């Protein structure tokens, strides 16, 4: 049956299969086979996803169970099984839900993942853990796909944890390198802490609604929208609290301030991992989570949505400022990712539900899509650069355009895209976010406009420093990467240019109905202008080696150092964990346990020994002594009897 979507299960299971095969038997044959198995299975998932997207958006997405064509994209559930019955009403399901955003995410995840797979065959060639790498990459793809098709909040949480662990394993890929080990640990623990908020949020929400199911949660007659929860906690509705807590989980995964500290360190992982997990897919899971629950946020918990908007806006500004001072090219890109995800959060924060109110939602999803393509491209290109010069630091680069022509062109395309140059994809998506902000919150709008300029500046700073500027002395002449690496670059460059022309306003909207959008020049023109100002400033300062950057950093020494050290947030965390949690709580507990609790018990033992030691002298084995005590006892007894009788 052509309307049938059951095969979507294959999209998810193929990577799982590949993980199991390569993970369990990968050591038995040549490493390259693991790469091939992984890539082929992802390739199949990729084809099926695109097929599903076309089928869903252009043929069957609006046809309901009775076969009637409506004007709204429906939420289809081709698979759903009851995985664990918690209580008579509450059960955890595992299933597949297709709606515009999940179908879009299927495409994003499989596309970027396939590109990362192909690229890795070249990039990871000859590495010790080649098999392990591909195995984990498959595990990640499986988890991420399971997350996006989740039918319920709890399934999402399950896969949420699984993507977290895949990320941990891949960041720590170079496990003999202490920095990679601590980076992976940091990433896992910070996101775990955020996930505690997520979990408590789910606990509260499920207590009041007795359901995890997305369809029920967002249905107008459902337990949230149909019967508003009236319970209050500290002057605010518990629903708002639970939605803020759930967003905390999203903020952790999406590296929003103040839970962002793991993302820059996560760049210790191999570059394809950074491209796939820490740029295009896993880090947008938080955005996806909020988008998934947008009706609840917009209708019943607007205060929580406001938090989303402000956190997003602040993070995007914060990250963009730091990005202007960093020298490690992957870290610049990491902060850029954080900043761009901030944009997406702003889009959601500025959104309502339904009709034109939902513009921010559409814009956010649009930006998620375009960002995935151009940011994955930037990372993969950065990988090609690192591959060529064997360094991450831009001081050791320069003039690379001559040596790496394909990388150069594709990187330039991506940089132009992120800078918001008209005609390229991010121009359209970023513009929609700005429009939404402009209509909702002028303050945030101005912040985002400024960030747009900063983005153009720091990205072109990176571009000019790497591909122009002064050429350092290279030990080996840098050379262009093999085809396995450049083909993904070219494909993604194509996507970065043209994905802006996908009619998102028809396809991915908050309520599933098509949305009319029109160009608002009052927003568009300033955005273009700040973009060009940013590019211009970077041109002046970095195209050739000048002393302007040094002069600026000299004159603003204190501020510059603060920014360069990422506002010392890491140090704050170090203080909290090491000084307070480890030395302040853990060490005293260990002491208390050993000396007080155990001491008491040992004390009891010692006392018993002592007492027995004192009284054991009585049992001396000497007959005279016994006889003496016996006779004395009898006499005392006799005397007392006589005394009392008298």
């Amino acid at each position, binding site marked *: 049956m052509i309307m049938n979507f059951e095969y979507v299960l294959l999209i998810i299971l193929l990577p799982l299969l590949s993980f199991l095969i390569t993970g369990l038997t990968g050591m038995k044959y040549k490493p390259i086979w693991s790469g091939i198995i992984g890539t082929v299975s992802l390739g199949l998932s990729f084809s099926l996803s695109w097929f599903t997207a076309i089928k869903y958006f252009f043929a069957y997405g609006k046809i309901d169970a009775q076969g009637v064509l409506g004007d709204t994209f429906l939420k289809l559930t081709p698979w759903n099984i009851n995985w664990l019955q918690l209580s008579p009403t509450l059960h955890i399901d595992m299933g597949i839900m297709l709606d515009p955003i999940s179908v879009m995410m299927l495409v994003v995840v499989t596309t970027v993942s396939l590109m990362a797979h192909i690229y890795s065959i070249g990039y990871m060639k000859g590495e010790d853990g080649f098999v392990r790498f591909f195995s984990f990459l498959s595990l990640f793809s499986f988890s991420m796909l399971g997350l996006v098709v989740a039918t319920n909040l709890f399934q999402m949480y399950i896969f949420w944890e*699984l993507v977290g662990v895949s990320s941990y394993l891949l960041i720590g890929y170079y*496990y003999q390198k*202490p920095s990679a080990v601590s980076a992976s640990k940091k990433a*896992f*623990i910070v996101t*775990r802490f955020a996930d505690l908020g997520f979990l408590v949020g789910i606990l509260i929400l499920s207590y009041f609604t007795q359901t995890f199911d997305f369809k029920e949660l967002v249905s107008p007659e459902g337990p949230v929208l149909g019967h508003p929860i009236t319970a209050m906690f500290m002057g605010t509705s518990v629903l708002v609290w639970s939605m803020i807590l759930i967003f905390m989980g999203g903020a952790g995964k999406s590296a929003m301030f103040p839970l962002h500290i793991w993302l820059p360190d996560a760049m210790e992982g191999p570059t394809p991992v950074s491209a796939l997990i820490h740029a295009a897919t896993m880090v947008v899971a938080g955005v996806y989570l909020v988008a998934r629950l947008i009706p609840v946020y917009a209708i019943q918990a607007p205060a929580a949505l406001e938090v989303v908007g402000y956190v997003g806006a602040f993070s995007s500004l914060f990250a963009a400022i730091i990005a202007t001072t960093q020298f490690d090219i992957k870290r610049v890109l990491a902060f850029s990712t954080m900043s761009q995800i901030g944009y997406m959060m702003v889009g959601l924060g500025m959104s309502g539900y339904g009709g034109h109110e939902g513009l921010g939602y559409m814009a956010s999803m649009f930006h998620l899509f375009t960002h995935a393509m151009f940011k994955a491209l930037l990372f993969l290109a950065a990988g090609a650069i690192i591959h060529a010069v064997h360094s991450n630091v831009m001081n050791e680069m320069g003039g690379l355009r001559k040596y790496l022509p394909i990388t150069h062109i594709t990187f330039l395309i991506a940089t132009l895209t992120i800078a918001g140059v008209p005609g390229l994809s991010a121009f359209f998506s970023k513009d929609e976010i700005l429009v939404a902000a402009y209509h909702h919150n002028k303050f945030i709008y101005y912040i985002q406009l400024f960030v747009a300029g900063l983005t153009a500046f720091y990205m072109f700073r990176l571009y000019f420093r790497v591909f122009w500027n002064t050429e350092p002395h290279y030990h080996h002449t840098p050379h262009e990467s093999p085809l396995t690496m450049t083909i993904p670059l070219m494909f993604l460059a194509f996507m970065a240019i043209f994905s802006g022309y996908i009619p998102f306003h028809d396809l991915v909207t908050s309520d599933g109905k098509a949305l009319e959008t029109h160009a608002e020049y009052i927003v568009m023109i300033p955005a273009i202008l700040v973009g060009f100002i940013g590019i211009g400033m970077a041109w002046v300062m970095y195209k050739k080696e000048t002393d302007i950057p040094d002069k600026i950093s000299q004159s603003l020494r204190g501020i510059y150092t603060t920014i360069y050290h990422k506002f010392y947030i890491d140090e704050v965390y170090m203080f909290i964990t090491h000084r307070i*949690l480890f030395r302040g709580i853990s060490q005293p*507990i260990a002491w208390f346990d050993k000396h007080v*609790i155990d001491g008491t018990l040992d004390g009891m*033992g010692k006392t018993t020994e002592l007492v027995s030691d004192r009284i054991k002298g009585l049992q001396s084995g000497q007959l005279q002594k016994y006889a003496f005590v016996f006779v004395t006892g009898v006499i005392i007894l006799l005397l007392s009897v006589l005394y009392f009788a008298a």
Partner: protein
Amino acid sequence: MDFLSLFVIIPTITVFAIAVSKNYQQTRLIAAVGMGIQLILSIVLLFSYMALRKAGNTEEMLYAHSYMWFPALNIKYSIGVDGIAVAMIVLTSVIVFAGVFASWISVEKWQKEFFIFLILLATGVFGFFISLDMFTMFLFYELAVLPMYILIGIWGSGRKEYGAMKLTLMLMGGSALLLFGIIGIYYNSFDTFGNHTFDIIEISHNNLPLNVQLFFYPFIFVGFGVLGALFPLHTWSPDGHASAPTAVSMLHAGVLMKLGGYGILRVAMFLLPEAAQTTAWIFIILATIGVVYGAFGVIWQKDLKYINAYSSVSHVGLITFGLLMMNTTAMDGAVIQMISHGLMTALFFALIGMIYGRTHTRDITQMGGLMKVIPFLAVCYVIGGLASLGLPGFSGFVAEMTIFFGAFQHADAFRTVATILVASSIVVAAVYILRVIGILLFGPIKNAHFEELKDATWYERVSTVTLILAITIIGVAPFWLSDMIQVSLSPIVARLTSVF
């Protein structure tokens, strides 16, 4: 001859067979075969139990039999199982099986005696789980606890006399309380003929007077609580485990500590429901402290066994916590946690023993980079670690989530706050587990001798793979287990909730 008694008879036969074995090879082969049969038998029991339930058998206890043993006091050998007992029996046989393989070469002296005491201990545990009569239950309980002293005292390491003495004395203290509580219940209960009885099912048909319940409940709860590492009576666990030989640690932390939780469920709560409800708050506070305290306590430890012992205190605290929430969901989670923690901790102790056998140290600061030299064991350790920090796909996650969601079904602020505190332990768990993994397995190799270490042998693989498989099966497909437990919990929950 009834089916359930086989679970006591087969280990007993194995013990006798070992006694006449000629050398180490024969001894361990007999032990492996005996425990292999036991494992198969327990899986048969599991499936036939599920088939009977599916066929519509709604009796509280299946395969029930009762033989008069000492008529003067109305003591019976009375046996029967429900889903909880079946699950625990399967758990025990998996762990004993894995434990035998973990001791394949590591026992250095008196191997025959070692296996005799080990399997005697297992006999006690199996007997405990099939018993429905408090007296025989107590008898088997003692049978399980006593060999521990000899096993640690003779085959242990480090401060073994101290550890063995401490463990035994504390557990014996618990037994004393328990015995007092059991006799108290006996003298206040009547069966259908008006005689005093030890029979759990018969006692449960009547309600004991409230003052009797309130008086004896703390004795039984604390008595079993000592074995369940209830704060602040947990300190036997780190010292005892640190000096115990591998298989003993596995069996002890894996199964014996669960006797505590099982006893609380089956005796304390089932027979004294009103007292359980009234005093719940005290023990909820203790369990919550235990969970958080244990988790923080781990961070500062350096000895692998201490690390696992303290994390056990935290995880076992979750069992008590779940039971104390007294609704089907939370108690279901608690029983799954018993199984899950049993498997995980057995896996850890097995791996620690295997690593110690190679590096001759358990101090994590002395080790590093083991992933490179013993990848199989290291990967198993990582899997165990991930399971222990509650990663979906492994049993720990299912157990923890069920407990949290069950506990959160209560509307009162006290239980809500306790639940959130307990849930926060999963973050601390992530901290200490990843810290250990990072120091122990990753990073550069610290000691040049470690370069020559050999990876797992076949018997070590049997041991670890069995445990990992069990953890994964529950983690991926928990529904059958959860269903089986929930059905069996219903009489207990019904008694607990009928009180109010």
